[in-house]
């Protein structure tokens, strides 16, 4: 009896050790960069690296934020009506339509990049405008906005809308006063996922960025390729990851994790 108990106990301990070893491996690249970003030329602590981030890299960070905000706006404008139509109205070929709309998520970044840079060059003439970059980001991330919205709308009983309409609300009023607040967590989940992806995107950006515009992740990529490993580059990468992590933590605290169901963030 006690041997069974012991072996079970041992298995449990081993399980938790396994989980923690994996988790530590996940954060090791980040921690290594964090440590490196605090080293100076003489091996001393150098907070200057982070001053550099907000000095020399400031423009890049500002661009990243601008592109993210614009992309999220477009994502919302496109995904809010689309999700409502997909869930609430009878549409023919709904399943295929949904798959076709979410397919951009599975196209490799380099393929989206080369396809867009060529069409921008020769058909749309968008190469010098930031809208080219924003729309490229939007097409890649709006499936991430759409999926949580669809899940949230499906979980929302239709009786709320029926009640509102019985009381004389128009369709428009029903949507903004009843549906929109109730699917708030779903919307936030979509915003979070899209933000994380857009904010850290470097591959499509590498192809379609307008001349003179470098987002922060692209700056990291360029610097790693051309200048080798510099503590200042590590500081920028660390800053980007910390900003993303704070966004995730804030979401977890406010909404919990269940609204991310059906998306790829568990």
């Amino acid at each position, binding site marked *: 009896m006690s041997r069974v108990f012991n072996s079970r106990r041992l298995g449990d301990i081993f*399980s*938790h050790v*396994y989980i923690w070893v*994996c*988790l530590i491996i*996940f954060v*090791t*690249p980040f921690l*290594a*960069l964090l*440590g490196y970003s605090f080293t100076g030329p003489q091996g001393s602590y150098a907070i200057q690296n982070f001053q550099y981030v907000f000095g020399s890299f400031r423009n890049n960070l500002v661009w990243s934020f601008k592109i993210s905000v614009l992309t999220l706006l477009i994502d919302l404008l*496109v995904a809010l*009506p*689309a999700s*409502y139509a*997909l869930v609430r109205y009878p549409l023919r070929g709904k*399943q295929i*339509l*949904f798959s076709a*709309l*979410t397919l951009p998520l*599975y*196209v490799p*970044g*380099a*393929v*989206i*990049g*080369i*396809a*867009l*840079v*060529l*069409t921008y060059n*020769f058909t749309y003439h968008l190469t010098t405008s930031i809208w080219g970059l924003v*729309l490229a980001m*939007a*097409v890649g991330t709006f499936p991430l906005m759409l*999926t949580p919205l669809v899940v949230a709308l499906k979980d929302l009983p239709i009786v709320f809308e029926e009640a509102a309409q019985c009381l004389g609300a128009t369709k428009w009023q029903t949507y903004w006063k009843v549906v929109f607040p109730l699917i708030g967590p779903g919307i936030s989940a979509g915003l979070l996922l899209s933000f*994380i992806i857009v904010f*850290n*995107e470097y591959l499509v950006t590498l*192809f379609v960025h307008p001349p003179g515009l470098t987002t922060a*992740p692209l700056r*990291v*990529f360029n610097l*790693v390729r051309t200048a080798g490993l510099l503590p200042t580059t590590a500081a920028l*990468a660390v800053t*980007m*990851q910390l900003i*993303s*992590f704070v966004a*995730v*933590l804030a979401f*977890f605290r406010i909404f919990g*994790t269940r609204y991310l169901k*059906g998306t*790829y*963030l*568990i």
Partner: protein
Amino acid sequence: MEAQRRERSARLTRVGLILPAILLTILFLYYPLVFIFRMSFTVADSFLSPSGPVFTIDNYKAMTDRYLPNVLVTIKLAGLSTLVNLIFGFPFAYILVRKVRYRDVVRGFMVFPMFGALYVAFGMRFILLPGGIATPLLQALGVENTQALYSLPSVVFAMSIFTFPFMVMNIGTALSNVDPTLEEAAACLGARPLQTFGRVLLPLTRSGIIAGALMVFGWNVGTFAEPLLLGSINEQRSLAWTLYQRGVVQTDYGLSTTMGVVLLILAFTVTYFSLRYSRGALLE
């Protein structure tokens, strides 16, 4: 008459609501994909020449003659990282679903790889450099730093870290739908753990495992930063990287769009099956 009018306006609303999404995807995804598909059948940059494009299938011949190693190495990298994710992901997902109560902490840790393969590869490169924190470990194994840095295992390792959460998510979702009493029943009936795994758990979570594996493979086929920062230029030349070199640096649009098409086919064949197994039921 009135009913007909209303019916029509309702249909217009429906179409109007979903139209922006359709337009966005067609204009910025499907049309560009058709565009590069057409371009992949033209000579170099003849697509732009005033005398009109010169059509050819030489690009596809070049793919099989000269660039087959790139295709194969891309498949190999994606396949190996999928395998690593499967082997380490299943136990992880099992423990996470059955034994762990601090799941939010695990989720918090697991978001780090998702911020991008670039940071993972950058961090790994720093770890593996001579004098990096992995040096004692590597010395214990009898491996030189530079040997480890520019090698297949380190590329696969970085790719696996990047996609591990996707695998765990897919398997975990499937596992949480399996009643734990089934395992207990199997154990009561005298099945050993390995038998329980093979005869009960594996068949019941098969769809999740397949979906996860295909998803991971599909994502890793487009690998770009990891081979560039951690691999050697001669051996781990992924398709995505060669595509960038050919298309943007050397402006050989014919060849680079051909690589794009091949990459797309690789990603889509697996995605097709993946969607059938995982997301298909979302709108039912």
